[in-house]
């Protein structure tokens, strides 16, 4: 076989027809499969046809094509309240737009015993409440799944633990601070103008007291997040940004109260509460940036919990949790079910999808005696597996442990804002103390006046612009990336991405497309026949074959033999498409992944498959070089295919036949040389290296565990998001630095004035607000520029 084989390009030809339900190529017919036909009939039958007119299909998201499912048991996930109402929360995969929400809710509304069936489009969750037992869950879920959505139950215990209490508390505090700041500012503005327009002392005192009445309770409430954090830090004999904030706010409030008693000219209640308002704004933004990561992790956790059907001596089965299976137990794995244990096949022939474990997209055939691993998906008929390792001893669990170990080694990354805060907090305290001592001892001012001046220093230096500087940039950058289908999961990922100078690529599924591409070796007639048979199957190779010729109609009456092939009875014999053995050919080692087509009276035809580079892989590698990055290729595959891909892309630093541990060693070596490594990979075997790298990226087609580990997950067939995210990260870093410089420069300008006792409350208010607005404005500039590159 030639080194560079020409792959048939399916992209150029538009499909002749799209399935009326899911929008995937239907090969001439109205529907692509029986499931879609049934879903369409259900929707039209209920008079919900406007769904098709109003929906907006997103090509990058999963198409709503119904999938066959083994019966599942949801009773573990159902909670029942005292009144006998059962509740189940599920993650919905395949939600595209408001029409999907409306469709699911309308279809579920047909169920008379359902009390509540509501989809949350933001979190992509469906909440079901119904009257009756947990056993109804399956029927209800099946109604939604028949429409083409995939539902995964949430564990109620995990759901309760993950409820976002902190976020709500922060928003409540922000609301209180905002209300108080607005009202106190009204009083303050009146007194400031009163100073020049002859406001009487009695009226001024009234204004001060009303301000105190509003501000003090609000400060006590809205300041809680800072006071708590500062107290915790002090108790551990450390200091953080919240310590100067807390000291400043409390000191300023106390001094203002004293001034109110003394009938003084100036109080700083407005400064204290406005400060808290700006600081809380920063906290809320920061929390939102972190929240996206949390939601994704929750989504993936649902995949881990599974139970296993253990065969009993009497021939029946009992479902037990996967970690409670005894070694050597016999386990039944039905069609469409994930294998729950590591073991050896005892009975049955089938095909396993091992993509979760190996990242390999082509399913492997298994027969008695074959070793199987937990996490693989049975695509064919039921198997009986004798367990050799269960629970924490499975390969899957081993990989998860490797990942955790690598993550622990990565250590804590100190974010820019914290590095600044470490130096900033002590400096501010020393300045304020020096001011107090200067006025009290040197200038001989009273204690109260000296304290008031020191308080003014604390207000001016209080880091509200500093606290906004980083979160504002983060939120704007991550939300802009999210709109482009790039999910930044870790709050510190942007800062780490900006430091990257070396990128290590995995080959399969990352540089290449996740699906294999058929080679154009056969004649047109054989192609047409093969594609028409392939259209009847859901096997990945068959789908790839049909995707290359999408306008060929599906053969009527084709019969699928799961794990082996597809057969069609024709005049004079049977046409077969499938494995070598299925086509009655002598066994021989295959050079590449292949399918055979056997037709009566004609020579069998071979269809080879090859990995194809992602469309824009070459541009991306060039783009990365232009950014000054070293590009490395590390693959678990053999040397020949790896070198072929490397040559196509011009990558010289190539490592083939790497085990997961080899990849980790490679990354650690690069790190040892002072490099900041970005790892881009998709398989479970990449999981440990993704965790070991400085920062990591995975495509959305990656194994679930890789997506959990990766800092950034991107959607779509193109690799360009890798460059895009790096560029935006660098821009975000410079915006953060500008913001910090602005904030600190502002303070440097104002501190001498404050220490000299020249800062009056109105000047403090203007200085504080304008520096915060300046920082926010600078952050928004990032968003404007970002739009222009694409």
């Amino acid at each position, binding site marked *: 076989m030639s080194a560079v084989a020409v792959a048939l390009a399916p992209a150029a030809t538009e499909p002749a027809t799209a399935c009326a339900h899911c929008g995937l190529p239907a090969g001439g017919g109205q529907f692509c499969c029986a499931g879609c036909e049934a879903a369409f009939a259900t929707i039209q039958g209920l008079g919900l046809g406007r769904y098709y007119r109003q929906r907006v299909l997103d090509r990058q998201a999963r198409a709503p094509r119904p999938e066959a499912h083994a019966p599942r048991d949801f009773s573990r996930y159902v909670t029942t309240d005292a009144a006998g109402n059962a509740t189940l929360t599920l993650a919905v995969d395949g939600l595209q737009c*408001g029409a999907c*929400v*409306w469709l699911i809710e309308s279809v579920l509304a047909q169920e008379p015993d359902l009390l509540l069936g509501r989809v949350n489009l*933001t*979190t992509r969750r469906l909440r079901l409440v119904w009257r009756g037992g947990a056993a109804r869950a399956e029927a209800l879920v099946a109604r939604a799944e028949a429409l083409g959505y995939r539902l995964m139950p949430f564990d109620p215990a995990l759901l309760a633990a993950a409820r976002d209490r902190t976020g709500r508390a922060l928003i*409540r505090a922000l609301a209180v601070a905002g209300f108080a700041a607005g009202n106190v500012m009204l009083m303050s503005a009146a007194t400031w103008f009163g100073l020049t327009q002859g406001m009487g002392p009695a009226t001024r005192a009234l204004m001060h007291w*009303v301000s105190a009445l509003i501000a003090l309770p609000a400060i006590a409430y809205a300041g809680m997040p800072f006071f708590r954090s500062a107290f915790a830090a002090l108790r551990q004999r450390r200091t953080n940004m919240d310590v100067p904030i807390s000291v400043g706010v409390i000191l300023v409030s106390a001094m203002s109260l004293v001034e109110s008693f003394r009938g003084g000219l100036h109080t700083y209640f407005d400064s204290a509460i406005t400060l808290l308002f700006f600081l809380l704004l920063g906290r809320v933004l920061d929390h939102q940036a972190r929240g996206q990561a949390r939601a994704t992790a929750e989504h993936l956790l649902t995949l881990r919990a599974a139970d296993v059907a253990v065969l009993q001596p009497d021939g029946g089965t009992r479902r037990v949790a996967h970690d409670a299976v005894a070694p050597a137990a016999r386990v039944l794995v039905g069609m469409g079910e994930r294998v729950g244990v590591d073991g050896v096949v005892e009975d049955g022939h089938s095909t396993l999808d091992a993509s979760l474990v190996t990242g390999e997209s082509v399913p492997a055939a298994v027969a008695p005696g074959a070793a199987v691993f937990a996490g693989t998906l049975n695509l064919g008929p039921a198997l009986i597996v004798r367990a050799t390792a269960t629970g924490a001893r499975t390969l899957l669990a081993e990989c998860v442990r490797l990942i955790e170990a690598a993550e622990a080694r990565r250590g804590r990354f100190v974010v820019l804002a914290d590095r600044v805060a470490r130096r900033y907090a002590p400096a501010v305290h020393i300045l304020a103390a020096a001011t107090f001592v200067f006025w009290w001892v040197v200038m001989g001012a009273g204690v109260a006046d000296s304290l008031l001046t020191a308080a003014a220093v604390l207000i001016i230096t209080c880091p509200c612009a500093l606290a906004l500087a980083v979160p504002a940039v983060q939120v704007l950058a991550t939300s802009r990336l999210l709109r482009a289908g790039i999910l930044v999961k870790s709050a510190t990922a942007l800062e780490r991405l900006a430091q990257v100078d070396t990128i290590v690529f995995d080959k399969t599924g990352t540089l290449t497309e996740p699906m294999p591409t058929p080679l154009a070796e056969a004649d047109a007639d054989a192609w047409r026949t093969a594609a028409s048979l392939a259209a009847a199957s859901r096997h990945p190779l068959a789908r790839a074959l049909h995707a290359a010729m999408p306008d060929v109609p599906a053969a009527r009456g084709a019969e699928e033999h799961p794990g082996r092939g597809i057969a069609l009875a024709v005049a004079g014999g049977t046409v077969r498409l499938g494995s070598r053995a299925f086509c009655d050919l002598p066994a021989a080692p295959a050079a590449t992944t292949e399918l055979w087509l056997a037709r009566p009276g004609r020579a069998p035809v071979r269809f080879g498959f090859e990995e194809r580079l992602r469309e824009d892989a070459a541009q991306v590698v060039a783009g990365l070089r232009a950014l000054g990055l070293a590009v490395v290729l590390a693959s678990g595959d053999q040397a020949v295919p790896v070198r072929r891909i490397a040559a196509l892309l011009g990558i010289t630093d190539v490592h083939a036949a790497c085990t997961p541990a080899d990849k980790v060693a490679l990354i650690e070596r690069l790190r040892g040389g002072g490099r900041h490594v970005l790892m881009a990979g998709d398989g479970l075997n990449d999981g440990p290296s993704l965790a070991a790298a400085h920062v990591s990226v995975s495509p959305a087609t990656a194994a679930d565990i890789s997506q959990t580990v990766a800092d950034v997950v991107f959607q779509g067939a193109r690799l360009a998001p890798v460059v895009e995210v790096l560029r935006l990260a660098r821009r975000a870093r410079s915006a953060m630095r500008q913001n910090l410089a602005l904030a600190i420069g502002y303070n440097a300008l104002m501190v001498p004035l404050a220490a000299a006792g020249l800062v009056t409350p109105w000047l403090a208010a203007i200085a504080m607000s304008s520096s915060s607005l300046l920082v926010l404005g600078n952050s928004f500039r990032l968003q404007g520029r970002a739009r222009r590159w694409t």
Partner: protein
Amino acid sequence: MDVILWLLLLSLGLGGGALALFLWSLRAGQYDDIKGAAERVLYDD
């Protein structure tokens, strides 16, 4: 100048009412699905 007292009380009452309303809406889950709410308005039943 008695009027200033009444105005103070009035403005605080209005502001406090708005704050209470916001806290209620937050607790009632009005902001739980902002994306969904924007789409739901297009489907009347």
